[in-house]
């Protein structure tokens, strides 16, 4: 594409006062806002604003499998479709899904499956559609977090919620929750997700370089961030019922 303004990255990602370019401290999260039940037609849905990321997720199921040959006689199947809108990125994305979107769909699906009781739904499918309408780094983490909320909103039995966040390294310093610039121009990036019923990591990717000590420290930083986001998820789910309750009282 030919654009008049170029997408340039600064040489330094940490300011002289030690803060990050957007003014955050090393372990601060970007502002996060979550809401459930935002798409009326869906069985369950959720919306998340995580920094500049804006993502919708909706869940349909259990329903008939289409195409039929994918159905399994002994359990249900979970399918995730992570897609980005053409206008969600700096250079317009082509409308057809690319390799990146298909890979992310798969890892999110594998990350969420352990919390579902698919064995109780033989011959059916659960479908999660994720649409990123604005992207600024960390969309797979935000998508996993919002997809778990949409599943809970749909009333599908779950062992627990799933929460996701990234840790990484820029200018030699470990940081939590990488923004778009930090992701592209930084040294390393490690998106993770946790399934709370067993406190285990269910999504893990890593790109870049880190030594053993840094890896240990960043995993500790991750734990703190995930706890914070988990409580926001719970609040978002509860607020739906608080709203219903207030509606009845009036």
């Amino acid at each position, binding site marked *: 594409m*030919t*654009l*008049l303004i170029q997408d340039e990255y600064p040489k330094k990602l940490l300011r002289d006062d030690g803060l990050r370019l957007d003014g955050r401290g090393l372990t601060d999260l970007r502002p996060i806002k979550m809401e459930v039940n935002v798409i009326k*037609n869906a069985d369950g849905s959720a919306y998340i604003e995580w920094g500049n990321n*804006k993502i919708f997720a909706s869940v349909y199921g259990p329903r008939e499998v289409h195409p039929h040959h994918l159905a399994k006689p002994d359990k249900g199947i979970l399918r995730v479709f992570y897609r980005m809108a*053409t206008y*969600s990125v700096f250079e317009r994305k082509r*409308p057809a899904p690319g390799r990146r979107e298909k890979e992310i769909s798969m890892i999110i699906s594998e990350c969420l499956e352990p919390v579902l009781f698919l064995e109780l739904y033989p011959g059916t499918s659960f479908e999660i559609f994720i649409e990123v309408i604005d992207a*600024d780094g960390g969309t797979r983490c935000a998508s996993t977090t919002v997809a778990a909320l949409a599943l809970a909103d749909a009333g599908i039995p779950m062992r627990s919620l799933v929460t996701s966040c990234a840790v990484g390294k820029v200018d030699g310093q470990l940081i939590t929750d990488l923004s778009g610039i930090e992701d592209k121009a930084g040294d390393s990036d490690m998106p993770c997700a946790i399934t709370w019923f067993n406190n285990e990591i269910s999504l893990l990717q890593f790109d870049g370089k880190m030594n053993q000590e840094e890896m240990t420290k960043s995993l500790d930083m991750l734990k703190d961030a995930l706890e914070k986001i988990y409580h926001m998820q719970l609040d978002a789910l509860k607020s739906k019922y608080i709203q219903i309750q207030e509606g009845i009282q009036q």
Partner: protein
Amino acid sequence: MMDIKRVISTIEKNYITNNLKKGERIDGRGLWDYRPFCIKTDTISSAEGSADVTLGDTRIITGVKYDIGEPFPDLPNEGVCTIMAELLPLASPLFERGPPDEESIELARVVDRGIRHADCVQTQKLCIKEEKAVYILFVDMYVINHGGNMIDCGGVSALAALISSRIPKGEWVDEVPRWTGKYLNGKELINELPLAITFGKIDDIIFLDPSLPEELVSDGRITLSVTEKEITSIQKSGIATFTIEEIKMLGEKALEIAKNLREELNIWQYVKNST
């Protein structure tokens, strides 16, 4: 509200039809009333222009992106504006995954034709250097929830996204396009405001802005795109048939409804500054 199914039961169809015959609708509107519109612009930070528009339960988020390319040989000093629609499977169980189907192509084309045949997008302002460099605008509509009448909602969404756009302004220096540091805004890009006005038809009853249950039981619909004085495109779809008198009546009705809607929405308020 009834469930969304491909096949509607006779009893539900009769309920909707009998009410319409009495001039009543299941959501309490009159025959010639729109559901409420709600417009938010500038919602997508990565896009050059964006609008999040709801019409009742229907919600469409549109973004504008640009590219610079060579003009068509027969129009050497005009830019291009393309309109695309995605019916996301997240928006309704009736939408399926995969390449654009007939319904999404119809939505994009009807909105596109309404805009193209009006004096709306100023394609000559989208030229940086004759025969060398023009803007290609991509107006992409994403349906987030399908509550019926996507065309009228999409039309307003596309227009609001274009009007709230800020496209980097280019000049031709040393055989390449360069940014001047300023922007093209909605005032420069847009002139007339065409609105798509859609009517549904069940038996011989015609009504404005079909909601999803009405759309599912109706025989068809007709969309008229109108500017202040003229009709710029018409699309009849579905198996409904219209008499000549009905079409004449709808042309008049559409102009009148669009005039009121244009005043009510006041889309020009979303223009952004050019510096």
